[in-house]
C-alpha cells in the first residue's frame, strides 16, 4: 500500500495506460530519451573541449541536433500513419506521503502526438538555426559558449516537451529560462544586455511561482505528478481534483503567461531581442516561448473538462495580448522588436485558441508559426548581418542586394499576415473558427481586427527594409549560403504546412495534423471544423489584404515618403505606443526599484538599527545594570547613564564593549545573577 507508486509499471504503453488504439511505437520511441540527453552531452563536451576544436564546438552542437532531427523525423513520420503513445517514468526519489500514498519524483519521457510534434519542431527549426548560426556567429568572441548555451537550451526544451510529469516539466521549464538568460546576455559586457537577461529571468520567475503553486495544488489531489494521471482524472471528472481544478488551472496558466509572454507579463520578450539573432529565432519566436502553449495543451483535459470557469479569463488575457500588443509593432524602429511584438501577438492567438477549447487549432498555429517566424527572424538576422544595424532607419532598398533574403522574408511575411494559401492563413482561420464556435464571437472579431494589424505592421517592415532607398552605411550584400540555405529550408514549410490540416481534408494513410496531435492518452474532445468556413475565411483574408494595402499605401516604396510617414507622430497614441503602454515603467518604477532600493535598505536598516540594537542594547543594559550592581555610580557610572540616555536621542546608545569592562567584580556579579536566574528557572521548569 505504502509502496503503491513503485508498483505502478514504469512504462505506460498502448493498451496498458488505456490509450486505446495507439501503438507503442518501436525502437525509436523506446530510445526517444536519446533526444533528451544528447544535447546535454554536447553541452558538456563543448564546454570541455569546444575551444580546441576546428569549428569551436559548433560541429558538436549541430551533430547532436542532427541526430535529434533524425530521431524526431522518424517518430514524426511513424506518428503520421498510426498514433504512438509511450510513457516511461523512472523514480528519482520518493519523498513522503499524502493521505497514505507515497509521493515520488520521477523523470522520464513521453512519446505521443503532442510531444512528437514538439520534438520535431524543436529539432527541425533547431537544426536549421544551428547551421545558420554557424555562419552568423563566425568571428564572435565566445563561439563555444554560444553553442554550449544553445545546446543547453535544446536539451532543456526537449526535456520540457518530453516531460511525462510536472516535475520534469518544471526542470525543463527553468532550464530553458536559464538558457534564455545566458543567451540574451551573450554580450554581457554591455549593461543593457545583461539588464535584458535579468529582466527575462525575473519575469519568468514571477510566472514560475504560478507554475509551482499550481503543481503544488494539483499534486496532493492526484497523488502523483504525472500528466497521464492528471488527464485521466480530468477526463473522469475526478472529485478529488474538483476542489482545486480551477485554482490550479489558473495558476498553471499564470506560469504559461510568463513563458509565452502574455499580457501583462510580456515585457521581457521585446528586450530579449538583445541576444544574437539566431537565439531570437529559435528561442524567442519558434520554440521556447511556445512552452506556455505547450503546457496548456499538455494539461488540456484539465481546462476542457474541469476548469471551464477559468477559460473565459484566459481567453480575455490572450485576446488582449494578441490585439493590444500587436500595435506596438507599428512604432518600433528595431526590426527585431517588430518581429518580437508580432511574436507576442501570435502567441496571443495560440493561447486564445487553446483557452477557448481549440487544442488542435492552437497547436497548428504553433506549428506553422514556428516556421515562418523563425524564417522572418533569420531573414532579419541576415539583413542585420549585412547592414550592421538593427534599425530599419538604417535599411531600405535591400531587395536587389539580397534577393534570397528578400524573397524568403516576403514569403514569411505573407504567411504571417495570413494570405491564402500560405501556412499562416490556414492556422489562423482555424483559430477564428474555434473562437466563433466556442461562443467567443466578440473576441473572434477582435482577432480578425488583429489580423489586419498583423498584415499592416509586416507590410511596414517589409517596405522599410527592402523597398525605397538604402539609408545605412557601407555596401550590404547577400549572406553566405550557410545562412541562406536555412532560409529556403524554412520557406518551404511556411508555404505548405497549412495544407496539412485543411478542414475536412485527410491525406489518406498519413491522415492530417488533427489526428497526429490527437494521439494522447485520453481523447482531447476539442472542436474541429468539418469543412472550410468560407465566410469566416473571407473575413480573415479581407482583413489581411486590407492591412497589406494600408501598409503599402502608407509606407510607399520611396525613401522620402518612408521617412515622412515614419515620422508620423499621432499625439497621445504615439507616445502611448512608444512607451509600451507604460507597463515597463510601471514595473520598474512601481515595483522593482522600490523593492531593490528603499525597501531593501529599510530592511537592512532594521537589521542594524532595530534587531541588532536590541542585542547591543541588551549588552548595554547589562553593562549598565552592572554599573549599578557594582557600585559604579561614581564618575564612570554617571557617564554610562548619560551615554545610555543619549542613546535614546540618537547618540551612542548601549555599548556592547562595556560588557567587557575588564572589571572582575562585574563579571562575578553577572555570574551570580545569571546563576541565580538559572537556578530559579531550573526549579520552575522541573
Amino acid at each position, binding site marked *: 500500500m*505504502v509502496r503503491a507508486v513503485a508498483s505502478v509499471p514504469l512504462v505506460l504503453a498502448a493498451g496498458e495506460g488505456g490509450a486505446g488504439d495507439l501503438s507503442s511505437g518501436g525502437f525509436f520511441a523506446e530510445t526517444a530519451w536519446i533526444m533528451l540527453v544528447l544535447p546535454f552531452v554536447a553541452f558538456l563536451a563543448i564546454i570541455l573541449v569546444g575551444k580546441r576544436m576546428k569549428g569551436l564546438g559548433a560541429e558538436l552542437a549541430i551533430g547532436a541536433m542532427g541526430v535529434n532531427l533524425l530521431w524526431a523525423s522518424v517518430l514524426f513520420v511513424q506518428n503520421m500513419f498510426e498514433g504512438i503513445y509511450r510513457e516511461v517514468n523512472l523514480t528519482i*526519489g*520518493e*519523498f*513522503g*506521503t*499524502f493521505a497514505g500514498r507515497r*509521493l515520488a*519524483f520521477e523523470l522520464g519521457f513521453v512519446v505521443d502526438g503532442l510531444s512528437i510534434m514538439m520534438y520535431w519542431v524543436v529539432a527541425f527549426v533547431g537544426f536549421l538555426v544551428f547551421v545558420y548560426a554557424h555562419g552568423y556567429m563566425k568571428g564572435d568572441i565566445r563561439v563555444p559558449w554560444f553553442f554550449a548555451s544553445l545546446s543547453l537550451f535544446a536539451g532543456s526544451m526537449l526535456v520540457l516537451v518530453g516531460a511525462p510529469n510536472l516535475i520534469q516539466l*518544471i*526542470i525543463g521549464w*527553468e*532550464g530553458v529560462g*536559464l538558457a534564455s538568460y545566458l543567451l540574451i546576455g551573450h554580450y*554581457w*559586457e*554591455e*549593461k543593457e544586455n*545583461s*539588464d535584458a537577461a*535579468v529582466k527575462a*529571468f*525575473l519575469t519568468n*520567475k*514571477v510566472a514560475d*511561482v504560478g507554475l*509551482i*503553486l499550481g503543481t*503544488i*495544488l494539483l*499534486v*496532493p489531489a492526484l497523488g502523483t505528478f504525472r500528466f497521464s494521471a492528471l488527464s485521466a482524472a480530468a477526463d473522469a471528472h475526478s472529485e478529488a481534483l474538483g476542489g482545486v481544478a480551477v485554482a490550479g488551472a489558473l495558476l498553471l496558466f499564470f506560469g504559461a503567461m510568463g513563458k509565452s509572454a502574455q499580457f501583462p507579463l510580456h515585457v521581457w520578450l521585446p528586450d530579449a531581442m538583445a541576444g544574437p539573432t539566431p537565439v531570437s529565432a529559435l528561442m524567442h519566436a519558434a520554440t521556447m516561448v511556445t512552452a506556455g502553449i505547450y503546457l496548456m495543451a499538455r494539461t488540456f483535459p484539465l481546462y476542457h473538462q474541469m476548469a471551464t470557469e477559468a477559460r473565459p479569463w484566459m481567453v480575455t488575457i490572450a485576446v488582449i495580448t494578441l490585439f493590444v500588443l500587436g500595435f506596438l509593432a507599428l512604432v518600433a524602429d528595431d526590426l527585431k522588436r517588430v518581429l518580437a511584438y508580432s511574436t507576442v501577438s501570435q502567441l496571443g492567438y495560440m493561447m486564445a485558441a487553446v483557452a477557448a477549447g481549440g487544442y488542435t487549432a492552437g497547436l497548428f498555429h504553433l506549428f506553422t508559426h514556428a516556421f515562418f517566424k523563425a524564417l522572418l527572424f533569420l531573414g532579419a538576422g541576415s539583413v542585420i548581418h549585412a547592414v550592421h544595424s538593427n534599425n530599419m532607419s538604417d535599411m531600405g532598398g535591400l531587395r536587389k542586394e539580397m534577393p534570397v533574403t528578400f524573397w524568403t522574408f516576403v514569403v514569411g511575411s505573407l504567411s504571417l499576415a495570413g494570405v491564402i494559401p500560405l501556412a499562416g492563413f490556414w492556422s489562423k482561420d482555424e483559430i477564428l473558427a474555434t473562437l466563433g464556435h466556442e461562443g467567443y464571437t466578440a473576441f473572434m472579431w477582435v482577432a480578425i481586427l488583429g489580423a489586419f494589424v498583423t498584415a499592416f505592421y509586416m507590410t511596414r517592415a517589409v517596405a522599410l527594409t527592402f523597398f525605397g532607398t538604402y539609408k545605412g552605411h557601407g555596401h550590404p550584400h547577400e549572406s553566405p549560403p550557410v545562412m541562406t540555405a536555412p532560409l529556403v529550408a524554412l520557406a518551404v514549410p511556411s508555404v505548405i504546412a497549412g495544407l496539412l490540416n485543411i478542414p475536412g481534408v485527410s491525406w489518406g494513410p498519413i491522415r492530417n495534423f488533427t489526428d497526429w496531435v490527437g494521439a494522447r492518452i485520453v481523447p482531447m474532445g476539442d472542436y474541429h471544423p468539418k469543412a472550410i468556413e468560407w465566410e469566416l475565411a473571407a473575413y480573415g483574408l479581407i482583413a489581411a489584404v486590407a492591412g497589406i494595402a494600408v501598409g503599402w499605401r502608407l509606407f510607399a516604396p520611396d525613401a522620402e515618403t518612408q521617412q515622412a510617414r515614419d515620422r508620423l507622430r499621432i499625439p497621445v497614441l504615439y507616445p502611448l505606443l512608444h512607451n509600451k503602454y507604460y507597463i515597463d515603467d510601471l514595473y520598474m518604477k512601481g515595483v522593482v526599484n522600490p*523593492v531593490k532600493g528603499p525597501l*531593501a535598505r529599510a*530592511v*537592512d536598516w532594521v*537589521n*542594524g*538599527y532595530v*534587531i*541588532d*540594537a536590541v*542585542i*547591543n*542594547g541588551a549588552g*548595554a543594559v547589562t553593562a549598565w545594570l552592572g554599573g549599578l550592581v557594582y557600585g559604579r555610580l561614581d564618575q564612570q557610572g554617571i557617564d554610562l547613564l548619560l551615554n545610555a540616555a543619549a*542613546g535614546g536621542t540618537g*547618540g*551612542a*546608545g*548601549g*555599548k*556592547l*564593549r562595556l560588557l*567587557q569592562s575588564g572589571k572582575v567584580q562585574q563579571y562575578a556579579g553577572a555570574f551570580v545573577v545569571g546563576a541565580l536566574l538559572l537556578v530559579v*528557572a*531550573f526549579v*520552575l*521548569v*522541573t
Partner: protein
Amino acid sequence: MDWFESAGLSLIVFLPAAGALALFAVPKAREDAQKWVALLTTGLTAVLAVAVAANFNYGGSEKFQFEVSQSWIPAIGARYHIGVDGISLPLLVLSAVVTVLAVIYSWDHWEEPRNVRGFLALILLLATGMNGTFVALDLVLFFIFFELVLLPMYFMIGIWGDSAKRRIPVLGRTVTMRLYAAIKFFIFTLFGSAFMLLGFLALYFRSGDFLGENTFDIPILIALGSQNAFGSGTFAFLVFGAMFLGFAVKVPMWPFHTWLPDAHTAAPTVGSVLLAAILLKLGSYAFLRISIPILPDMAREWAPFIGLLAVIGIIYGSLACLAQTDVKRLIAFSSVGHMGFVMLGIATMTDVGFNASLIGMVAHGLITGLLFFLAGSMHHRYHTREIARMGGNQKLMPWMGGIFAFTAMASLGLPGLAGFWGEFMSLLGAYRPLAGLSLSQFQTYMVIGAVGTVLTAGYMLWMLQRVNLGEPKAEWSDHEFHDVEPTEWLAWAPLIVAIVAIGVYPRIVLGATTDAVVNLARTAFGG
C-alpha cells in the same frame, strides 16, 4: 566487519580530534607534514563516513544503525550512545566530506597570522564536534558536541578573521570586526545553549516519573514522546520553548540571526564555509532529532509560530540581500532566507516538510559552502569584497565566474540542481500541513515563501550582474589574475558534482531520509 559496525562511528567522531593531537607532535616548522596529517585524518574520516553510508541498511533507515551504547557517567545516567539513522546519515556524510574539502582548500590559502598547525587543529576539532553532534543519541553527549563546535569557531573568527574596523550602528563605536563578530557569535550561541541545557535537564528529571530512573537517552525519550508522556501542559511548553531558543539561535531563525552576517563576513574563508555548510544545520537537525519527536504536542502547538518566523526569515533575508554591498555579507543573508525554507518545512510537521528540510539542509550546505569558497577566493584575488568594485569577473577569470554563476543559479533554486527540491517540497508541505494546523495560515506561508523565491532570484541575479558581467573596472587593468587553481578545483569539483547529482537524482538524499521522516511523522503525530 564487526569492528566497523561497532567502532565505525566512534572513529568518525574521534579521528579528527586524534589528528588534532597528532598535529602537535609535528614540529611547528614542518607545515607540509601538518597539512598531510590533517588531510589524512579528515580524508580517512570521510572515507569511513562514506563506508557507513555504503553499509547502511536503507530498507530500515528509520532505525538507528551502527549503534553503540556504553555506560559513561553512571552517576547521572549519561551514556555514550551513538548511532545513525536516515535523518542524520546525509548530514554526517556532508559534514565529513566538507571538512576534507576545507582542508584541501586550506592547502595554499592561509590567512594572517600564519599558523598552519593551529588553524588545522581547529578545523579538526570542529569536525569532531560536528560529526559528534550528528551521531549523538544521548542528550549530554549531544550537548557536549553541540557546544564543542563553539570554541574552534570562536578562535577561528577571533584570530584569523577580518581585521577591518567597522562602525557598529547604535553602538556608536568602531570595533575590529573579527573581535566583535567572534564575541557576538559566542554570546548569542551560549545564550541559547543555556536554555537548551535547562530543557535537557528538565526532560531528564521528568523522564524518571515514567521510567523509574532518569535518562538522557534520546531513543528512550523519543519512545516516551511518541506516547505523549510529557503532555501538553506548561512543563512541555517551557521545555520546548527553552530548546527552541537554543536551536533557533543556531539555525538561525529570524530574529536571532544577527550574529550570522557578522560572523560570516568576519570569518576566514574556511570558517565561513564550515559555518554555513555544517554549523547552521546543527540547529535544524536538533529540531528533527530532539524537539519534535520528544515533544510532539508542543511541536504542533509551536508550529504556526515557527512557520511565521520562517517565512519572515525568507522575505527578510532576501530583502536584506538586495541592500548588501559586500559579497560575503550578501551570501550570509541569503543563508537566512534559505534556512527559512528549511524551517518552514519543519514547521509543517509533515513527512514531506521534514524531508524538505533535510534535503534543503544538504543542498544549502553544498551550495552555500561553495559560494563562500568562491567569495573567499575572489576576496583573495581582489583584496576587497565590495561588489561595487568588482564587475567583469567573468572576463578576468572565466572559470571562476562560470562556477560562481553556476552556484548562484543553484542557490536561487534552479530546478535540476540541488537547491530546488528543498524549496519545492517545503512549499508542498506547507500546502498540506499536519492535520489540526490552520490550513489557511500555512497556505499563506506557502504563498509568501513562493514570493520569496522570486526575491531570491532577484538578488542572486543582481549580484551576478554586478560581480560577473560588464567590463572590468579600470583599477584592475594592470592586475594579474589567476583563474581557478588546482587546489581550488580539487575542493570545488566534488561540490559541483554533488549539486548536479542531487539535483538530477535526489534519491541520493531522499533514499536515506524518506523512510525515516515518514516514521518520524507517524510516531510523533500518529496516523
